[in-house]
């Protein structure tokens, strides 16, 4: 037994149990959340070279699970996010009025998402990654369908397209190298047309999953319409898997054949996403749509980091910045969606202008929203700041002033739209508000947002964690000493 396989097995078991138990499955989260959090923590504290071979098959056929820094951080964050969201959903079931059955379908999907995400973070096998990608997509589409069927369907179609593009790429890789293991590919890869086409197809497909501009079209309707806990999971976790697989592809499998120009394509799209997402977010008058577009912008930072990581002499800082941006966004965005859900429940309507009086009626929830906003804007002290700080430092050191400018401008634009929403909470109420607060409801977003802030204080530890078994530090699985 090892935490690596337990982290996948436990959620799968929970999913099965939830399917069987039906309505009674809600309580399961009380067990699963601490258990998974403990496992994730265990994983984080494992020695650097931890790996696990499922079913004792040798490498080309067996399933290797291994935990590098990125995986550890992402899994820990996933456990925290799903745990908190789950506890929140326990008292605030994600259902539309009159759709009581929805709450039943919610729980198995959560566990499916959890298992898929964890497996995806841990595995380095391109085909297994495809499977996990589909697990996550399936769960995500179903979660989105809890809000708007039409949006979910659109999401489904586009996501399916992405999956197939990825699969086609995998097929080409198999044809060319007869292996799908990332570590083996790193040694074999050659910059021929087949490999490049495979890389291009996989990248494009994954960008759909990661909702990078201009392939983000499915995200805002789906995320904005879903019930708050579902939105939180979608924005926090579902899009991150695509990102992590891209990291595996570009920095672990094919670092030798990805030229600077190709990296600039991703970086450029990332920069465009930051600006475009921010501008669109500024234009929204509904709170959840705003938060959803904020995700579009935040995803941009992740890809903006690609050329910075590749271009750095010592990529540790940029790498950590990229990873921490993903983690900080997970925590903050989940917190923000949960808080927004509570706020909209108390407000007169779903528009930002309807939020008046909430700062007075439910200060803690608004605080959670505000703290999450601080992290998303990249204001200190917060995980978002630490990440942006590292990226900005890298950008300036490399003379990448365009990216530096986008990083700065993106933060400002985020401030514009997020503070706009916050300010609306301070406006006087047009009608008396009945606050939706208390207990886990409010505690969950507050805890997540608090964690996003606390991340700002533990920068050194997080940077060291992110560097475990990082591809730039040496050959994979032959692991360096942790940084002093």
């Amino acid at each position, binding site marked *: 037994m090892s935490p690596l396989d337990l982290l996948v097995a436990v959620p799968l078991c929970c999913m099965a149990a939830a399917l069987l138990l039906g309505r009674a499955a809600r309580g399961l989260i009380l067990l699963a959340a601490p258990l998974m959090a403990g496992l994730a923590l265990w994983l984080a504290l494992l020695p650097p070279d931890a790996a696990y071979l499922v079913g004792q098959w040798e490498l080309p056929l067996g399933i290797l699970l291994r935990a590098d820094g990125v995986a550890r951080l992402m899994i820990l964050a996933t456990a925290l996010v799903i745990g908190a969201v789950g506890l929140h959903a326990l008292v605030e079931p994600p259902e539309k009025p009159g759709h009581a059955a929805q709450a039943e379908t919610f729980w198995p999907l959560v566990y499916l998402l959890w298992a898929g995400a964890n497996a995806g973070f841990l595995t380095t096998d391109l085909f297994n990654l495809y499977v996990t990608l589909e697990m996550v997509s399936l769960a995500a589409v179903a979660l989105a369908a809890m809000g708007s069927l039409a949006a979910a369907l659109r999401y489904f179609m586009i996501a399916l397209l992405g999956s197939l593009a990825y699969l086609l790429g995998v097929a080409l890789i198999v044809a060319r190298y007869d292996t799908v293991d990332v570590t083996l590919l790193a040694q074999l890869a050659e910059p021929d047309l087949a490999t490049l086409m495979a890389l291009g197809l996989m990248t494009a497909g994954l960008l759909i999953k990661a909702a990078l501009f201009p392939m983000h079209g499915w995200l805002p309707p789906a995320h904005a319409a879903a019930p708050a806990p579902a939105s939180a999971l979608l924005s926090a976790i579902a899009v991150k898997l695509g990102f992590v697989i891209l990291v595996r592809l570009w920095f672990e499998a094919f670092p030798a054949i990805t030229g600077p120009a190709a990296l600039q394509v991703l970086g450029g799209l990332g920069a465009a996403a930051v600006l475009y997402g921010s501008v669109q977010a500024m234009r929204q008058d509904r709170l959840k749509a705003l938060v959803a577009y904020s995700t579009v912008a935040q995803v941009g930072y992740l890809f903006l980091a690609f050329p910075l990581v590749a271009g750095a002499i010592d990529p*540790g800082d940029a790498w950590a910045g990229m990873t921490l941006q993903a983690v900080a966004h997970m925590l903050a965005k989940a917190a923000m969606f949960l808080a927004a859900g509570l706020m909209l429940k108390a407000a007169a309507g779903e528009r930002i202008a309807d939020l008046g009086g909430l700062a007075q009626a439910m200060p803690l929830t608004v605080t959670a929203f505000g703290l999450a906003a601080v992290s998303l804007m990249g*204001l200190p002290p917060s995980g978002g700041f630490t990440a942006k700080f590292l990226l*900005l430092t890298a950008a300036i050191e490399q003379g990448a002033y365009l990216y*530096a400018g986008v990083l700065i401008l993106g933060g*400002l634009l985020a*401030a514009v739209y997020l*503070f706009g929403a916050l*300010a609306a909470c*301070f406006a006087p109420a047009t009608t008396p508000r009945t606050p939706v607060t208390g207990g886990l409801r409010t505690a969950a977003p507050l805890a997540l947002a608090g964690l996003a802030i606390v991340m700002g204080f533990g920068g*050194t530890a997080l940077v060291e964690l992110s560097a475990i078994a990082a591809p730039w530090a040496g050959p994979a699985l032959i692991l360096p000493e942790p940084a002093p």
Partner: protein
Amino acid sequence: MMTFAPLALILLPLAAAVVSFALPERLSAWRNAANLGVACVKLVVVTYLLMQAEAGLVFEWRYEFLPGHDFVLRLDPLALLFVTLSVFLWLLTTIYAIAYFDRGPNLPRFFGFFNLCVLAATGVAMSGTAITFFLFYELLTLATWPLVAHKGDEKSLRAGRIYLTYTLAGSVAFLAGILWLQSLVGPIEFATPPDLAGVPALTLTLIFILCIGGLGVKAAIFPFHGWLPEAMAAPAPVSALLHAVAVVKAGAFGIVRMIYDVYGIGTVAELGLGVPLAALASVTILYGSVRALMQSDLKKRLAYSTVSQVSYIVLGASLIGPFAVIGGLVHLVHQGIMKITLFMCAGALANRMGIKAIADLDGAGRQMPVTMAAFSVGALGMIGMPPVAGFISKWYLGIGALQSDAAWVVAVLAGSSLLNAAYFLPLLYRAWLLPPPADRPAIRELATTRDRMLILPAALTALVSLGAGIFASLPFSPLGWATLIAEGGYLR
């Protein structure tokens, strides 16, 4: 234990903030007690530290928050100057705020953010590295925003928006500047200024412009001053705090750090950056005064006066001469004490008698003599009339300007004094010499405890600003301390 002293100064207001947020409104007495208690404890700690610092001890606490980037809290004499000022004024503002709001809505929130502001201002003062400075500087922005928007009406929200727009833009410019510099010379510690020898002059100039531009937003340097008069929509204790201590001072303080502890006066002089900055500060001084003259709202007039006065600090710092830097530093304190007096008085007038416009001031002196007396002292100090403290600042700035071969600055000071007189003296004239309107009810100024809590802090700061002027050359006077700082660090 003593290395934790700087940390304690950060944690104490944090504790007060948590208590303020957590306690419900019906326990407001406990909240008030906690706020006052923490403020008093801080005052004691700072007094103790002052005595230690006089003996030459420097306290430092550091923590590596990112690899290669230390979070450093360092209590050098310059930090102590600002810390002492903020701690002292905060105690008074807390008393004042408790009386001012009495039983208003949203007070847990107010006092919570209020304490976060203390935290941030103290942190700004104690920052030992550029990044630490930025952290607290940004925190200050965030913590003051809810205070500016506190009332929640359209005007306040607008003010909050404008405030954020300006200050966030400023802080990213500052961040870009310091990161750029760090990418060239490594982490910047104020205690050990970086070696800039290998950096091209043009780059240094650009970085300087970025940083000063960023800091200048908070210091309300023309043309970045637009947020400050708007922020007048905030309640009086906040205005007092924004204008006298926390925000504008943080900007000015940062500029002093930039010039003296990052670039060093040698480099600044070499690059020829001092004179343009001084010119900009001079423009601000005159522009702010002229605009103040055109205002008809009392707080707005005070706000433009702040725009003008804060630039004295920048002026002093940018002139790069022993007397000028003393003048700038001492004005940091003097302006704080005098301006907080003015704002607390303005708030008391509005609170007790509903006086907001200048035209309503008629006869206020007869009805609230103590308040108006304090106001008068503050106003005369702003004009630079001796023996109020403002005179000492102007004196040092003037001599400093002459030492730096910038006699034109003296003309600026003179013009500013005249303009100050032109916009303050009519206020005093109205308050003392014109009869109050017939329909204003008579009040007893110091009838209840609440009234006394509202008015006596201002009276005390007025006395302090008199004392700081009259006893300027005592060792622990602001001037004495500023001289100590200058001699210890900047006149080498």
